């Protein structure tokens, strides 16, 4: 059985415009899928529709089966327990995705306590372990810091730790490295790849950058103005794009790849 089955998903805005039109795809347990498109292509909305968290006013129709349960039209009450446990999110900008007033340790403790049932010193231990897992140096210090006191790459690692704390079966990463510089981006991608692989988690990786997606997934769905224009394996999309829109992404991907190679070459000798 598929972990996620999206069929004929449509998302309509209050003015009657379809922001996502007839998008269908499936994700099996442990499978990875890239969602590629420029901004406004509906890729993020598609991702949010998967857990029934569309911005106010937007209406989803069609079907989203997550872990065997229909999400579209489901009441909030039945969706809350599914979120985190079945599927969790990583956002583009970790600075805004973390509460500035709450110490990071406490923020991380919240999903850990809820999903793993730890309390007291066991919870504190689990929080530090979770920070250690995402290769953060000095977990104690990070746990006692607030989001604006640490660097962008460190923040995104904390956000990853929070998303993984729920032990989800599916991880949705919405442009998780776009806000980071290239060197940090490569490190965070490698970490994410390794963590998701270790846990046999499924992943939907949303990005406007085919090169970044190609590091994380084999399959990708290319979206444009709310529609899926092409779906296939990434080597195929890169080598022989069927749609001119995909071809643009393939060209962009080669440029990014070169930047990555340069950044890694610089980073390695140290």
């Amino acid at each position: 059985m598929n972990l996620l089955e999206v069929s004929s998903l449509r998302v309509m805005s209050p003015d009657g415009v379809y922001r996502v039109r007839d998008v269908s795809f499936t994700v099996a347990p442990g499978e990875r899928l890239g969602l590629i498109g420029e901004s406004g292509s509906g890729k993020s909305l598609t991702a949010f529709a998967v857990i029934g968290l569309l911005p106010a006013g937007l209406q989803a129709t069609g079907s989203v089966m997550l872990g065997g349960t229909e999400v579209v039209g489901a009441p909030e009450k039945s969706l809350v327990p599914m979120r985190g446990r079945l599927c969790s999110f990583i956002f583009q900008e970790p600075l805004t995705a973390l509460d500035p007033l709450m110490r990071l340790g406490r923020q991380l403790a919240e999903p850990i306590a809820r999903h793993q049932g730890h309390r007291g010193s066991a919870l504190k231990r689990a929080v530090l372990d979770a920070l250690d897992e995402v290769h953060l140096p000095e977990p104690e210090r990070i746990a006692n810091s607030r989001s604006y006191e640490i660097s962008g790459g460190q923040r995104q690692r904390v956000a990853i730790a929070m998303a993984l704390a729920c032990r989800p079966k599916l991880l949705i990463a919405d442009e998780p490295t776009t806000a980071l510089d290239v060197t940090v981006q490569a490190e965070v991608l490698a970490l994410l790849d390794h963590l998701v692989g270790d846990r046999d988690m499924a992943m939907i990786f949303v990005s406007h950058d085919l090169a970044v997606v190609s590091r994380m997934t084999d399959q990708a769905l290319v979206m444009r103005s709310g529609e899926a224009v092409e779906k296939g394996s990434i080597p195929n999309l890169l080598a022989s794009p069927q749609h001119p829109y995909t071809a643009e992404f393939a060209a962009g991907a080669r440029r990014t790849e070169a930047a990555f190679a340069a950044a890694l070459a610089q980073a390695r000798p140290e």
Partner: protein
Amino acid sequence: MTGANRPATSAETTRDGAVPSGGRARNRRSLALIVGLVLVGAIALVALLSIFWLPFDPSDTTGGRLEGPGLAHWLGTDRLGRDLFTQVMIGARIALVAGIGAVGVGAAIGMPVGLSAAFAAGWVDDTMSAAMDILIAFPVLLLAMLIVAVQGASLATVTVAIGLSMSAIVARLTRVVAKRVLAQQYITAARTSGTSWLSIVRQHVLPNIWPTVSVNLASQFGVAVLAEASLSYLGLGAPPPNSSWGRLLQEAQSTVVTAPLGAVAPGIALVALVIGVNLLIDGLRDIADPIQN
């Protein structure tokens, strides 16, 4: 060489330029905090003391009429021969009870209403906002007078009346700030991990609206103290012998030329409390706001 020197120079300029001015601002702020603490602390101490000990019974009229300050009557007596210092002490208690009580009532009603409006989109929000705006259109004093006129004058009525009149202001502010917080991505992030709305309100919304709302509540305290004094001045406050500063002012009015202290003492106490609270808020806000620091 120049390339190596430049960052050092610019670092020095910022160090020289930024720290002293930041230090001055900090000193001014901590001075405000200290003055505020002293004023409010002194009045609070006097109010607390008045519960256990008073120099005279407030209805004791055995003193001479309109005596000047002396060893027996520190601030003199009023036209009925009652000790003025005793009355100012009781007034301090009444001012604090009315201020804290009114702000408490205002927050207890205003914050839940404002939060609900922020959550409820569409016509519910519009209706609630319109109701708030209509209530805010009436001055706090007028609304409170209306309630007191119906319910009869007592400290409790005055306090609740002022609190009720303030709740609309608190609700409107809470709504705006909560709406802004709810639009933040960390709220969405918390929802994606399956946090319930109740925990989101408790863990994210309340802490993030509190810096703004608490400053407003604290400044409403000054407004409430003044409103209570005004209502008492008009004879709508706590009945004698437990007179508030407003009533003392009103009673001393006819003898203000012959015995000015009767009006000056409660007047200074009132001003000291309101200014003290405002200075205290200024000082505390800068300490409490971690982002600004």
